[in-house]
């Protein structure tokens, strides 16, 4: 019968049975029960149900659950291994994000620098070259051009040789670009392996 009662009445009856209603609500409910036999019968049935549940047999604990240092140690080891794997996975993922962001940043910086350099290199040559010279160079005959190239070539080779002898200054952006892919792959592998191991450990435990 309680199942057919409105939820509010059911809650009130249940709380009334446990002495959990305040004086006003208790008085109201008692007055209603005097005139509503269904409500009164529902209270009786709830009381019977509660009496059955209170008679539910209690089992004795099948053994003592006292703890020993060895039990705590074994459990610590399992928990700490699981926690360590989770930590490794989380750290590797964070580092992966950092490296990836650094990679994007370095790419962006070098791209800007390269475009700025090419603009800077092209602009003075075009602007500083006198007009007649330009025309002259445009109108140079092939035989004269061959002579000019012959003179310029040793000079260019010399510059290249000197440039190779001097070590290039350390550039973080170049360094990141050189190693970013490798780092990203490594971190991805570590994060995935740690997550997989952690999941397997938890799965096996379950």
């Amino acid at each position, binding site marked *: 019968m309680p199942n057919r009662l409105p939820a509010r009445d059911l809650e009130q009856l249940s*709380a009334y049975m446990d002495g959990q209603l305040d004086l006003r609500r208790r008085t109201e409910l008692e007055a209603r029960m005097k005139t509503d036999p269904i409500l009164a019968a529902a209270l009786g049935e709830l009381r*019977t149900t509660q009496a059955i549940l209170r008679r539910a047999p209690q089992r004795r604990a*099948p053994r003592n659950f006292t703890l*020993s240092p060895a039990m705590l140690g074994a459990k610590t080891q399992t928990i700490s291994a699981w926690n360590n794997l989770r930590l490794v996975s989380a750290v590797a993922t964070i580092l992966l994000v950092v490296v990836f962001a650094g990679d994007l940043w370095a790419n962006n910086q070098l791209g800007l620098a390269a475009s700025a350099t090419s603009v800077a290199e092209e602009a003075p040559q075009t602007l500083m070259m006198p007009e007649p010279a330009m025309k002259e160079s445009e109108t140079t005959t092939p035989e004269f051009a061959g002579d000019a190239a012959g003179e310029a070539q040793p000079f260019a080779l010399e510059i290249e040789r000197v440039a190779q002898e001097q070590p290039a200054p350390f550039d973080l952006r170049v360094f990141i670009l050189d190693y970013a892919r490798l780092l990203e792959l490594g971190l991805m592998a570590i994060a995935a392996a740690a997550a997989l191991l952690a999941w397997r450990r938890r799965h096996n435990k379950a």
Partner: protein
Amino acid sequence: MEGIGLSMDEVQLIQAAQGGDLDAFNRLVLTYQNLAFNVAWRLLGDDAAEDATQDAFIAAYRSIHRFRGGSFKAWLLRIVTNGCYDELRRRQRRPQTPLEPDPADENQADPSWLADPGEGPQELAERAELNTAIQRCLSQLEPEFRAAVILVDVQGLDYGEAAHALKRPLGTVKSRLARARARLQNCLQGFAELLPDRFRLNMQEP
């Protein structure tokens, strides 16, 4: 455990356990192990309750430094019920153990644990049937409803302790309890012939 005086009350035992005294904690285990085991057993319905109880005590020892007073019983039962919820969730993900009591389960088939020295075979059989009816009906409730009714009606906690153990507001506990009782009453009607006469619910339609 020899070092612990018998006069040591619960507060002192808790304080000692918070300071890392495992013997003091084990005294608390001995006090509450039957209660913790019975809650786990009623929630899980089988012998997985033994592992759940042990794990709960290990977890309680590890986190006892976070206990800030109030009812230790309710605090401990919160750990027990949370552990049981985890186990039930695991079963839902990997359904291999039936939620309903297994008739082949030795505790169902052999009710020797129910035996009371002063009881005859008739009373023992009655209690076994009562237990079967209760456990079957409890197993049909959702875990949160089951936990509310187990704590209040089967184990006799007051509303405040149950609310603390379930980490739910008092109003939620009241509402769940009322609905759980109504559904249990409905279910127990199906076992009317198994219940002792004094507990037979009125099955007549109004």
